[in-house]
Structure formats: C-alpha cells, structure tokens
C-alpha cells in the first residue's frame, strides 16, 4: 500500500544535506520552472487537484488564484510548519529528512504567485529540527537557489525561518501572521482573507509544509502523474501519522482513498496486544471519533470522511483500544484546547474551562446526568460564536464522544440527581 513520492529521499542517509539531496534529484525542476510562465505553473498545480495538507483540504492552486491581479504591493508566502495539532507529526519528517524538497517547493510556489519574500513559521519546540532547516536554507543560499538570482535567473527570493514559541493557535493562519508581525497569536476575523489582506497588510498565501513539498513532484512529472495516485476528488499521496494503540505506529506515505481498517491492520500492524478496537480518531485530535462499525466503510480521503461526519484533518490517525476510558480521554482533550485558547473570545476562553470543570466533576463521581446535557448545551453555545475554529475543534470531537460513548459518561454520573456545577469560581 505504501508509496514513495514525497518520502522518496527519506531513507537516503544525510539527504537533508544539499550535496546528497542534489545527487538524488533536488532542484532539478528549476530549469523547467523558468521555461514556464507563472500562470502555467498555477494551472499545472490546479490540474493536479492538490489539496491543502494543513487540515482543511482547500485546493492549493485555487487558493493561489485568489490573489488580486496587478498589485502595487508585495506578495508574501508563509509556510505553515507550526505542526501542533495533537497526533500530527508528518511535517517534521519533511523538515528534517528532506528540507530541500520543501525549499524547492517554496521556489515553485513563489514563482507562480510572484512572491519574493517567504517566511517559514516553525514551532518553537522543534529545536534540533530548526537547526537542520536553517542549515538547508543557508546551503540553498550559498548554492544560488535562494537570494538575488534564483538559479541564475532574474528572480529574487528571500526565505526567512521564523520560530514560534509554544502556542498551538499560531497554526491558525491569521494567528500565524500576527505572530510574524510581532504580536500575540490571536486570530483575525475573516474576511478579509489573507490572500487579499495578509502579512503586513499585503496579499499573502499560507500553505502547509506538505502542500508545498508536493510541488516538485507535480512540476517534474505533471498533473496527470500526480493524479495516478489517490481518488478523483482527493488526488495524490499523503504522509499519514499513525499513533496510539497499534503494533507499528509511525509515519507512512499512502495514496489517498485506502480503506482505513486495512491500513491499520496491514500497514500499522493492527491493534496492539491482541486487543479489540474501541474507536479511531481519523485526522488529529480535532476530528470527530469513529466507532469500529463506522470505520468499516471509511476510506482515507476527504469525501469519505465527510460522508461519515468527520474530517480528514491532518492525517494523524489515532487508534483507541478497548481499555481506553473515554471520559478521561475527553478530559485530556479539553485540557489541551482550554490551555491553547488565545483568550480573545469569551465562549472559547470561559466555555472550554467550564466544560473541563464539568468533566472533572463527572470523573470525581460528583456529576449527574444533567451535567452530560449541560456539556452538550455548552457545545451549542460555543460553536460558531468565536473568531476562529479552535473552539469548534474542541466541541466537535467532544460531541462525537458524547454521542457515540454516552454510556461511559452516564456510568460516571452519580445515581443521585446532583446540583448543577458552580461555574463562578476559577
């Protein structure tokens, strides 16, 4: 099932070094790139059907085409390497195993969109990774792939690595831009969308590391070659991160559209310790959980996930075995989002705290059935009432656990009809 498009150089020793990467094909697309017009490059990417790998799956070429024409302002590119969605670890492989594939992708993107200043926003925790990335950027400058004349052509491109410092919310694209501008990572209201008003009030494209790293293959081999993999609406390959209760957790590159359960069994070695499956989180902690029954018909693509009322997300698949206490898991999840709320919307800042308090109350044996209803009510009052979707990234999965594993919450609810929790403190 596995394929090696993006991960072609991952197993080659020292492929993060320019010399080695170059010996194995890095930067070979540049000659072709500069024979094409930017519009032709954009069309090729559109035709490939590549969809954004940061979670939302928006078609990359279409996003680029939203940039206003005939601008008198600079265009910026921000590469999203914040990778902080729990259970997501795919971009790290690109950053450390083949950073030159990403830099080559940046050159392709910037040529297509007319950008001369790109920023790579990398999460602060990636300390050794940022060194590898910075070295790759330095090597690319020294070799003339970046700088005043990219590949000897009349095209300037500067790439700057900007380090985050421990805030999940900076993965949200407008918070990321605020952060580069030297502000707190607090998302902006949309519209205007960043393609029109983005970094430093200029038109800006934000793309995920993996979206950008997919470009060299597409340009080298053409849109049709990319479409050989995947499905009609979800073409190509994806770096899936499989974690949790499987025998062989890890990062696997697969074409989109594979059956979920087959992937868990054949690729990741199945549920560990011979245990039974309880549920699967399909695309990072923000995506609604699937029951084993639902999982039977799911394939790993955007359409199938939507049809099963969940999301493809970041491709971070988490397997839960029969021993998992769903209520404790939900406590762990809400803690995360509560901690990472940027604080500017009351329903998110306060509401997630209330939800956490109620779950803790249930776990302590002090909650009643009405507390479960109260959790649902809070979800209703939080969702779609905030500036960004971090709050929904918490309430949507929580709802799925409440719906699909309600009996586990009820088991914790004390027999006695207890009073509503006092939400005034804290």
């Amino acid at each position, binding site marked *: 099932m596995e394929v090696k498009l993006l991960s072609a150089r991952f197993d080659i020793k020292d492929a993060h070094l320019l010399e080695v990467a170059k010996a194995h094909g890095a930067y070979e697309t540049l000659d072709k790139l500069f024979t094409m017009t930017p519009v032709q490059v954009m069309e090729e990417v559109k035709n490939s059907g590549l969809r954004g790998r940061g979670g939302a799956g928006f078609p990359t070429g279409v996003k680029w085409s939203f940039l206003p024409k005939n601008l008198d302002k600079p265009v910026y590119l921000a590469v999203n390497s914040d990778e902080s969605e729990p259970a997501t670890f795919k971009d790290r492989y690109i950053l450390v195993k083949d950073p030159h594939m990403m830099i080559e992708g940046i050159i392709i993107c910037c040529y297509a969109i007319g950008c001369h200043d790109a920023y790579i926003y990398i999460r602060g*925790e990636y300390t050794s990774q940022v060194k590898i990335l910075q070295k790759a950027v330095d090597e690319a400058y020294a070799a003339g792939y970046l700088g005043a004349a990219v590949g000897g052509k009349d095209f300037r491109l500067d790439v700057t690595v900007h*380090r*985050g410092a*421990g805030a999940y919310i900076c993965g949200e694209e407008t918070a990321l831009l605020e952060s580069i501008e*030297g502000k707190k990572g607090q998302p902006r209201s949309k519209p205007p969308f960043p393609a029109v008003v983005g970094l430093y009030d200029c038109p800006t494209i934000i793309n995920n590391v993996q979206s950008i790293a997919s470009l060299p293959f597409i340009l080298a081999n053409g849109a049709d070659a990319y479409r050989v993999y995947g499905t009609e609406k979800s073409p190509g390959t994806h770096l899936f991160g*499989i974690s949790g209760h499987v025998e062989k957790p890890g990062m696997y590159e697969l074409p989109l559209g594979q059956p979920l359960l087959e992937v868990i069994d054949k690729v990741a070695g199945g549920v560990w310790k011979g245990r039974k499956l309880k549920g699967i989180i399909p695309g990072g902690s923000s995506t609604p959980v699937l029951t084993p029954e639902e999982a039977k018909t799911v394939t790993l693509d955007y359409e199938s996930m939507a049809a099963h009322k969940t999301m493809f997300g970041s491709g971070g698949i988490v397997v839960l075995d029969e021993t998992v206490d769903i209520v404790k898991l939900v406590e762990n*999840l809400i803690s*995360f989002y509560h901690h990472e709320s940027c604080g500017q919307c009351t329903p998110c800042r306060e509401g997630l705290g209330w939800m956490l308090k109620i779950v803790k109350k249930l776990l302590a044996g002090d909650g009643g059935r009405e507390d479960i209803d109260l959790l649902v009510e809070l979800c209703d009052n939080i969702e779609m009432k905030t500036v960004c979707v971090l709050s929904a990234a918490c309430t949507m999965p929580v709802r799925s656990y409440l719906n699909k594993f309600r009996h586990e919450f009820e088991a914790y609810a004390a027999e006695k009809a207890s009073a509503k929790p006092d939400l005034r403190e804290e």
Partner: protein
Amino acid sequence: MSDRSELIAVGKPFSFDAERDAEFERLITRYPIRESMIMPALWLVQEQDGWICAEAISYIAERIGTYPAKVFELATFYTMYHLKPVGRHHICVCRTLSCYLRDKQEIVDYLAEEIGIRPGQVSEDGKFSLEEVECLGHCGTAPVVQLDGEFHEAMDAKKLKALLATLD
C-alpha cells in the same frame, strides 16, 4: 515555566554577546517592520542566558524601538519563554493525546517519586526543572520527553532513569 506573571530583575544591565548581536543585525534586515524582531530577539536572549530577565526585556525594547510592555506581552503569551531560571537540565514531558494513551503518566510519576519533582517545579539542588507540555509532534513514538531541547522517543521510566543518570 508555569508562573509567567512577573519579571525578575537581576540588577545588572543585559546586552547581547557578539554572536547574538550579529544574528540580531542579520535578522532585522529580513522584516519590513522592527516589531517582527521581538520574538527572534527573545529567543536570542534565552539562548544566551537560559531565561529572560527584566533587564533583557528593556534591552530588546530599546534595540527595536518599542515599549517594554509590548515585549513583556509576547514573553508572557508564548509559553516557551522562561521568565525565571530553569534547572540545569530542563525536562518537558508531553501530556497530550498519543502520549497520554501510551502512558506518559508513568514518566511523570517516576519523576515525582524518584527525583521529587512535579510539573512546574525546579528541584532543590537546581539540577532539574520539569514541565508537562502539549503535543510535541513525535506522537508516532510516544511517549516523548524533551530534555534540554533534545527529543527522546518511546520513553518509559526505566529508559528515563538511565538517561538522567548520564547527566551531571
């Protein structure tokens, strides 16, 4: 570390060493506005001193030409900036989803019982500080511990014990 509400003054002025000074000057040419340098400058301070004191906040503000309050605001918002000294060895244990499922608690319990240190604390001898942090992007090899910036994957109490024994 956990308490991020106050700045600590050390009583002597801060300035970048030659290497950081050069890095500051290189980076500031990359941004169209000077405020963009606040985060990189905070990182440079932390690299140099291990944490960020009140004097360093004023120093950054002055070099960038902004208010100290603006620098302080970012230093408190972004949780990786240390506003007080950490231990000689700083341990971060991931507490989130995949690490939770693969028993990160064993590691936290080990540190509490054997080293006597809980999340948010610095050990009495100043050797260790411990933080529980959110997903570190190494979920496929959970549970993970980040020690002095280096990742240690598929950890358990036994491996951690062996690792800590190598430190002075």
